[in-house]
């Protein structure tokens, strides 16, 4: 079916919601300049708090509006010649003339504030249905708490999706915190729909690695003993991955659904392609126990920040190696099943947008001599 080799530099769908920023990054004190899916944006809020995403280039001579100023209840003023635009990107004044050129406007992109993020749609605005925003309800649901940060990752977004869809790497990249040999010894089950992929892995009756032992002791002071550990990876197109993670006292029924003797977290990840070789990686670690403890929130955020720093270094090194070896192709392993379904979904989205990459011979084709 797929007559292509595994893309090393996957293009990104444009008809999709991507996170442009944390909600607190977009305001009126300064205009945020950020490139989303290849599109440079100027992001700010109107006086009544609505988030606005305009193309970061004035209609006139393409000066960056993000270096301009906010004027009036909703307008932005170009820093160069003072042309102003409203929140829809329509010109509201021009210098040195009494009329406004009727074609003067900068593109304005649909924006939604949801799950503590500002989501932007850079594709066909007629298709921008807020119902298509991936489910990240643990970010704002009262039953959960947590916090996160942003990584500016110097790699194609697909490499980050690959990283999160196969957690076998934890054993090698994160050996001091969450890695353990049972990760690569345990089986996993992959399933998918048209827009989602799930990879579920259980490790029964194992030693809790340091990160999880600390979390168990936050809920069960003085905890000692073995645990059942789970990782259930939920991908939702195009680039959101929420991972249900946790451990429970071994044999207390967590695999059957009773997690009361354990601790549960959700690693919320949503990846926004910036350029072909860079990405904004927004993450948060949410938990559903000890909701009152800001100390635990901060400890978890800093702990995961350290863990993800190891990923970031690996992803940067991988992208550099990919670029340094343009004549070598990717090969796949069985552990890539989740990531390969993600690619299949993304390639179909690209195809639907008429943007499939040039077909190349499938590597599995038999050689004829």
């Amino acid at each position, binding site marked *: 079916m797929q007559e292509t080799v595994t893309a090393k530099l996957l293009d990104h769908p444009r008809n999709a919601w991507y996170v442009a920023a944390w909600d607190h990054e977009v305001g009126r004190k300064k205009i945020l300049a950020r490139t989303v899916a290849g599109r440079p944006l100027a992001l700010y809020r109107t006086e009544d708090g609505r988030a606005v995403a305009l193309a970061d280039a004035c209609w006139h001579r393409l000066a960056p509006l993000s270096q301009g100023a906010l004027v009036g209840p909703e307008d932005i003023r170009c820093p160069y010649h003072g042309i102003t635009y*409203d929140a*829809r*990107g*329509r*010109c*509201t004044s021009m210098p040195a*003339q*009494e*009329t*406004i*050129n*009727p*074609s003067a*406007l900068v*593109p*304005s*992109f*649909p924006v939604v504030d949801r799950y503590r993020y500002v989501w932007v749609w850079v594709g*066909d*605005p*007629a298709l*921008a249905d807020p119902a298509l925003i991936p489910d990240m309800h643990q970010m704002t649901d009262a039953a959960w708490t947590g916090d996160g940060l942003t990584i500016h990752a110097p790699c194609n977004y697909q490499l980050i999706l690959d990283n999160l869809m196969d957690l076998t790497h934890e054993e090698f990249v994160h050996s001091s915190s969450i890695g353990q040999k049972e990760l690569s010894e345990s089986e996993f089950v992959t399933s998918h729909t048209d827009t989602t992929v799930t990879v579920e892995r259980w490790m029964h009756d194992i030693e809790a690695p340091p990160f999880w032992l600390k979390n168990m002791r936050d809920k069960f002071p003085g905890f000692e003993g073995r645990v059942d550990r789970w990782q259930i990876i939920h991908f939702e197109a195009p680039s959101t991955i929420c991972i249900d993670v946790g451990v429970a006292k071994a044999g207390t029924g967590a695999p059957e659904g009773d997690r009361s003797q354990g601790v549960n977290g959700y690693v919320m990840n949503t990846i926004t392609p910036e350029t072909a070789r860079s990405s904004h990686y927004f993450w948060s670690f949410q938990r559903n126990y000890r909701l009152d403890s800001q100390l635990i929130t901060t400890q978890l955020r800093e702990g995961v920040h350290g863990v993800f720093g190891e990923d970031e270094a690996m992803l940067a090194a991988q992208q550099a190696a990919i670029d340094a070896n343009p004549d070598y192709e990717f090969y796949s392993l069985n552990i890539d099943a989740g990531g390969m379904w993600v690619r299949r979904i993304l390639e179909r989205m690209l195809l639907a947008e*008429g943007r499939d990459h040039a077909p190349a011979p499938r590597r599995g084709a038999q050689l004829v001599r």
Partner: protein
Amino acid sequence: MAVSRTEVWQGGTIVASRPLTPEIRRIEIEVDDPVPVSPGAHVDVRLTIAGERDRRSYSIVDATADGRRIALSVYTSPVSRGGAAVMNALAPGDRLEITQPLNDFPLRPGAPRYVLIAGGVGITAMVGMAASLRARGADYRLLYAGRSRPLMAYVDDLREAHGERLRLHVRDENTSLVISDLVDAIEPGTEVYVCGPIRLMDAIRREWMTRNRPIADLRMETFGNSGWFDAQEFTVRIPATGIEARVRPNQSMLEALEAAGADMMWDCRKGECGLCEVRVSRLSGDIDHRDVFYSERQKDARSKMCCCVSRVVAPADGAAVVEIVTS
């Protein structure tokens, strides 16, 4: 927002051509490198007119979902500069050079209400917008003004698609648009899109501005071939350089000056940007301002004109002559 201003040229094949009215012909083209068409888009085509390479812009009336087959409608004006005749002569199987869709007039989703106003062949820009609004379940009205019913293209199709949302204003049926009443009836927050002759657009803009309505709510697409008067021949002189040119009815003043050897500045060539402005030092007759660059006050002053579209009309008792100072 679906704004596209980057020209990508491609080939196209004429697949159908038929008259809709005595003045308007529908031409369907299959393009080589299709991309989906957004409402408000147009294409530019390269034509050879009287031996000279030239280009013309036409709104896309409708298109297949993949954008492979697009339909244009070509209006033959009494003072056509020759493009319509070349387009009308195209037959199925003929090839032409055509851009991928360009869009200076994008339809913005999400407004609480829309009013689309088309005058004459300006309907070509509105057919796609109205279809898009209908498909989206938007609250919209389509007002279509024309001289007489047999000259108005697409009326039956539009009535079928839009029912009571379509309102016709036909001059020879005494149902012409009354612009002041129209603007008064438009509720705040409504987005208004207009495509039609300059008289219609000027009138709407004037009523809009006198009521202090937000200028950003009024969107207009111009096409630089209509004025307050019929085009007539006139003379233009540049005393500083001694250049004199006769401007034929089917030629712009800018074209005539260029042909006479004047080194002219210009950009949009459709009366929007103001770069082709010339100062009027002497005038016999009156100026037929056909641009949207100047305000009413500036037009009334008769001291400057956009020579890419605006013209001179003769006084009752003499010849039409303008002397100008160029940049």
